[in-house]
């Protein structure tokens, strides 16, 4: 069975450590990764993690992966078992400055993967785009609106609680229970 590769690369306006953190937060993959409807970290020991990913299309198909991590440099995600055909994702991170880095993704999978209902996982460019959007969660300057867009609402989770910007005004949200007891 021939093996196919898909590659993609991109420059990110963030430090290498942030990109690495996003790629190794397996519990959060369901929030941003293409075709992943649910995700959870099963175990982590040193630079090895085991995670389970559940597809959103087709639903309920699960795959267990082993993730071999080299801090701030590489994340290798390998199929361990499950309903999805064999595949492998290799992320390589290169720091190019205090606030910039490059990310390269190489996907490897058997040719038959393209005939499966999970073939959407085999798009390196989709993964790269998804990572860029996910990084927006942590970059203060991130905006999807462009120069002519009008911001309406932003909500942030901070160590001090939830912070909301509504039409340019900042609000700090208080927990409802503490408000009632005040």
């Amino acid at each position, binding site marked *: 069975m021939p093996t196919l590769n898909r590659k993609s690369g991109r420059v990110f306006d963030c430090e290498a450590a942030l990109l690495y953190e996003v790629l190794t937060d397996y519990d959060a993959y369901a929030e941003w990764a293409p075709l992943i409807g649910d995700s959870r970290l099963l*175990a982590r020991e040193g630079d090895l993690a085991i995670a389970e990913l559940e597809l959103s299309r087709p639903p309920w198909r699960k795959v*267990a992966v082993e993730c071999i991590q080299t801090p701030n440099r590489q994340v290798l995600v390998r199929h361990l078992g499950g309903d999805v055909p064999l595949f492998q994702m290799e992320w390589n991170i290169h720091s190019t400055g205090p606030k910039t880095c490059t990310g390269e993704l190489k996907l490897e999978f058997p040719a038959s993967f393209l005939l499966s209902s999970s073939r959407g996982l085999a798009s390196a460019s989709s993964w790269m785009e998804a990572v860029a959007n996910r990084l927006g969660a942590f970059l203060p300057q991130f905006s999807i*609106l462009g120069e002519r867009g009008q911001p309406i609402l932003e909500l942030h989770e901070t160590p001090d609680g939830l912070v909301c910007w509504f039409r340019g005004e900042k609000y700090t949200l208080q927990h409802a229970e503490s408000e009632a007891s005040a």
Partner: protein
Amino acid sequence: MIKAVIYVSAPRPAVFSVLTNYPQYRTWLPGCEQSEVIKREGNTTDTEIVIRSMKTMRIGLRFEASQDQLLSFHMISGQDMKAYDGSYRLMDAADGDGTVVVAELEIDAGPMAPRFLVDRFAKKAIDDTGKALGSYLRESARPGVVPAARRPVKTGRPKRLVQLGKVGNEYRLWLSGRIYNLKG
């Protein structure tokens, strides 16, 4: 090589204890009719196991154990198969309650056995072993012993959850990493 991940809701030492209690395999391992220790030397144990599957097979297995971490085995005698090798790697589960077992199994049944059938058999063997191990540990759990839950601590990095704005006649929503275009 067939691999699988098994979650067992028991602490790692308990799981390792069951996996290395070779004479007791016949009480929980599916198909195991007999399990005998032949020789023990340090962390290495030679056993003879009789498994009833499609037919009754007698296999000599050598186990190498690293306390609470890894148990590997390979076939040292047997006429029904050319090779039967594998390992169980144990890790503490991230939920703080159980153990994650990464199981690997390689079977060589000889040139006459189709590879896909052998792999299917190996996958079933791992799955059945995982279920049986979990059931056995649940039934033999001591009441009142509840392991302390350990939850991973999230970093305090501020995180954007939502960004909503208007571009032309459309609203654009960013939600935790996904972008949605909303038309009025």
